[in-house]
């Protein structure tokens, strides 16, 4: 059962201030009720899909310089005139 408290908890987890919590309560509940059909599945195996990857199949962990084509990455970011990125206060 999704209620006001639960939706507020979820919006806190996903860090989104909900403009219309009532609408989401109704919709999320309706969809989760549908997801409950998973309870009816008769599993004949406890396995889940996985794929094994050999360690030597991974690429080498080595430094590759970024090709910025003469346009530094920082130019594409939101920054102040001193080339700093401003973040909100961590208190």
């Amino acid at each position, binding site marked *: 059962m999704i209620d006001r408290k639960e939706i507020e908890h979820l919006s806190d987890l996903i860090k989104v201030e909900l403009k219309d919590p009532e609408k*989401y309560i109704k919709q999320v509940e309706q969809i989760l009720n549908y997801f409950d059909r998973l309870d009816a599945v008769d599993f004949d195996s406890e396995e889940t899909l996985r794929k094994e990857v050999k360690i030597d199949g991974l690429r080498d962990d080595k430094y590759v310089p970024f090709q910025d084509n003469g346009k530094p990455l920082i130019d594409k970011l939101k920054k102040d005139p001193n080339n700093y990125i401003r973040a909100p206060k961590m208190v």
Partner: protein
Amino acid sequence: MNLGISATEFIAQVKAGMISVEEFLAQTFERIKKIEPQIHAFITLNENVAMVQAKDIDKKIKAKEKVGAFFGMPISVKDNICVEGLRTTCASKMLDNFVSPYDATVITKLKSEDSIIVGKVNLDEFAMGSTTEFSYFGPTRNPWNTEYVPGGSSGGSGASVSSMECIISLGSDTGGSVRSPASFCSVVGLKPTYGLVSRYGLISYSNSIEQIGPIARRVEDIALVLDIISGEDPRDNTTVSNKTVGYAKDLNAGVSGKKIGIIKQMTGEGLDKEVSSATNKAISKLQSLGAQCIEISLDAVEHSVEAYYTIASAEASSNLARYDNIRYGFDYSNEGFEFKAYISKVRSNFGPEVTRRMLLGAFVLSAGYYGKYYLKAQKVRTMIKSQIDDAFKKVDLLLCPTMPILPFKIGEKVDDPLKLYLSDINTITANLSGIPAISVPFEISNSGLPIGIQLLANSFEEKKLLQGAYALQESTKLQEVPI
């Protein structure tokens, strides 16, 4: 000049000197400007760069210098795939001013063959949706009837190819996002096997499921693009080396002697009447070409919608946690804000579908519910894969309609997310099991709306899949798009 030619025709005509790339591109942009007010397929146009490239390629051809295999072919790219120097917005306010600093691997490959990117096309925000109505920039319209949805989430890709604004488009397919717009816009769309095409530079939504796939007007064009974009990429560890090159060869091998499984759960109840009759017609056509059609039952797909949306939402909520509007995003000063208050405030600018999926994802992953939802969904996924494996021991290809319904009006289902999720029932199986699937335009309904037929093959059997799709394409002749 006929802008509706196929990729193979375009290449042949440019090679033969019958058309110049510059003229073709100029007319393409003229058409884009003329019909965009009705269709709204594009988010960003790349006209200046594209025209310079077109001139350069013409010069190279004249000087008999080496030119890439695509000879300046105009393509559009879904706006969740990075192209250096162009905006990649994901149709979200959260990435409104994000300019990509690098090319996705698929773009590097297409550029190296001299294709020309005409622009970035519309999608449902972060590729979440099946109608392209959930775009921050407004919906794309179906070229067959502009009151109707073009399908989604790669609706801009489907509509731009269908309405001759480009020859080929790249989309991405997480739950049918290439095949749904292909079906609704009467073009061809392929979701390749998971791991065949690099996802480097595709903005992540559901990593264990999504693939980049081409949309074109002809099956042979899809094969051409796949030959270029497939293969191992050290920047995407899920890719595998591609030994089956030459998808474009032997496309006309036919289906004689092939066994085709008709998926029981996707061709029976719940189908629109006209979709059902088109499916039966497609089966008859393939039989008349020598294919043997048998019914195949995949019980587990009856739980595919809830399994798919559980997994996709879980991965979405994790992937979208990174958007904080600090390094890029829209203008909204964080002066005076406490960290979390600012993040929650700016993230309220995600649209309704993205917000819903993040809420669902957070719920199914949260303590106490993980076993009830996420783990069970993963088990259903395993069951589907195992039933698919069994099916391909008996048949070469599987068949069902791509979409169980005809395209519907814009706004009709936008407030009923569950109804929209249920319309993905025929496409999500390929995503959950990783196998390739293609939508081929097959019929136009009495009301003038397209119907696509979907073929599915076993993992990495794209060659067989494309041969089947080509046979289906050649068995029918469709009217031209009315726009």
